[in-house]
């Protein structure tokens, strides 16, 4: 279990995070939702160990974060930050191969090929990273991060993703979350910051709602993703209805001049298309 207790974080006496508690179980996908500036990325960086936390504690598998050496930490968790830029002309294959670093010499020879094929980056392997499109870069970075934890290990591990699908097209977005769902079965707990409410509702096991440095709610999709709560979090009218064919949740918003219209009307007008 990845546990954060009473996390409190200030920048120049302005609280960014206040009394945040979070627990992440192996085998589950937890999605953090919240408006810009809610403190999502700061919480993410504290969990990953990138920012040291003065108040509160973070524990990986019951061991306090600061007792880990960087190398040991890399064996229990992999992290994909929001943006990664490269200064030197590395190929996509070289970038993904960096993910082998924490593994020592104990990986199977075709590991890179399997990960790159799973992330649809195998065909890009000989291209220079800098010449890839935004979505392709993101997939290559994802492949690098997944390489780190791809092979099955006897202890629970964690994968932290900060907006992993922000530059991807819709089919790639679903593809990434399908990979994540597969990874969960390998005793891996996944934490993702997402902005797409529908993706979150479709794949998450647990949702964390954040606003102004506070964790407002934490629970299952059904518990947390209600119109009232989402409206309160995002300060914007949000409508939820059920897709007739699959019974799953569809979450939508409209330009502000539609606000006076009734929910029912919007929902029915959308269904026509």
């Amino acid at each position, binding site marked *: 279990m990845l546990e954060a207790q009473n996390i409190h974080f200030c920048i120049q006496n302005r609280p960014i995070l206040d009394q945040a508690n979070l627990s992440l179980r192996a085998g589950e996908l937890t999605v953090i939702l919240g408006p810009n500036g809610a403190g999502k990325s700061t919480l993410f960086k504290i969990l990953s160990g990138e920012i040291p936390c003065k108040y509160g504690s973070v524990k990986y598998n019951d061991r306090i974060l600061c007792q880990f050496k960087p*190398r040991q930490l890399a064996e229990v968790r992999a992290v994909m930050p929001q943006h990664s830029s490269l200064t030197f002309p590395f190929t996509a294959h070289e*970038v993904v191969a*960096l993910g082998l670093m924490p593994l020592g010499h104990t990986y199977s020879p*075709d590991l890179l090929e399997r990960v790159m094929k799973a992330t649809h980056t195998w065909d890009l392997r000989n291209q220079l990273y800098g010449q890839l499109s935004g979505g392709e870069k993101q997939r290559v970075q994802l492949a690098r991060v997944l390489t780190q934890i791809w092979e099955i290990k006897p202890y629970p591990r964690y994968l932290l993703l900060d907006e992993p699908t922000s530059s991807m097209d819709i089919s790639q977005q679903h593809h990434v979350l399908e990979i994540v769902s597969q990874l969960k079965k390998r005793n891996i707990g996944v934490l993702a910051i997402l902005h797409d409410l529908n993706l979150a509702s479709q794949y998450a096991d647990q949702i964390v709602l954040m606003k102004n440095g506070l964790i407002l709610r934490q629970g299952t999709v059904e518990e947390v993703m209600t119109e009232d709560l989402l409206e309160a979090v995002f300060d914007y009218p949000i409508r939820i209805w059920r897709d007739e064919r699959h019974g799953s949740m569809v979450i939508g918003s409209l330009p502000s001049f539609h606000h006076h219209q009734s929910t029912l009307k919007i929902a029915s007008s959308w269904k026509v298309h």
Partner: protein
Amino acid sequence: MSTQTLVAPKTKKQNRLLIILFLGLLILGFCSICLGAFQIPFSHALSIFMHQFGWDLGTFTQQEANVLLQIRLPRIVLAMLVGGGLGIAGAALQGLFRNPLVEPGLIGVSSGGALFAVIFLVFGSSFVWLEAIMGVFGLPLFAFMGGLINTVLVYHLASKSGKTDISLLILAGVALNALCGALIGLAIFYADDAALRNFTFWTLGDVGGATWAKVQVASLLILGPAVLVSWQFKSLNALAIGESEAFHMGVDVQKVKYILLLMSALIVGTGVSMTGTIGFVGLVVPHLIRLLYGADHRLVLPGAFLLGAILLTLADLLARTVVMPAEMPIGIITAMIGAPFFIWLIMNVKKIRT
């Protein structure tokens, strides 16, 4: 095609390239030994070497042997060590700052080393105790301290949350270079005659003042750190995608930073104390390797050492032969090659960065 078959030829190719560079350096070194104001035929040079190993071919004069062994060989070995050191230090600093424009001279490492070397030469009489303790290591270690102070200063001035701002970096370098230049002037202003003569010898020294004693110190203080830097190739590769990413992959970023800063300053400081400041080698060489053979630091670090050695040996050969029997300062030649390359680099930096 499995990954192993994909990765293995890459390492093999890198090794082959390093061997080619090494052989190139040896051949160049041998030619360079024979050429100059005093020509030594190749066959004579060969028999001088063989004579050292106890195999007498007997086709050389004692004068040739003296010139070769006491003047040219130490000079060429020193040029190789300093050039290689500048190359690998440049590669390490570029990797560390995550910026292809970094160069020991540009960001003030060299001038810091030069300032401290001048202080040591001019006020040397006040440091008798230091010389007594450290002997021949006194000057290079003093220069190393100067280089280190400037490296750390520049790094802290230009870095914000793990990212170096290139404009701040250049500005900090300009400021420190100006300050060091002024302080060097001040030190010379206060120097007495004996110290001034010492100083003049040092600035004019180039690689011409090489002795075997110098070469011994240089090989210890340059080769050692160069090997240590080369071992960090994995960490430098990881640092290329970012400091936090490197940390996430298990790199102890702070430790790697300290090692690289210390070792680069030691290499550059030693080089500067032996030959004066030689510009552009540290900038040009890592780029040539990257442009030609890719950015993997497993190759870039040792490759930059070998190519730097080749470049400076070549520059030294030109310096000795172009205006024979006089000698041109080697810095002029490296700057004539390096400065146009630097301009080209600035014009193309956007393309290179992607």
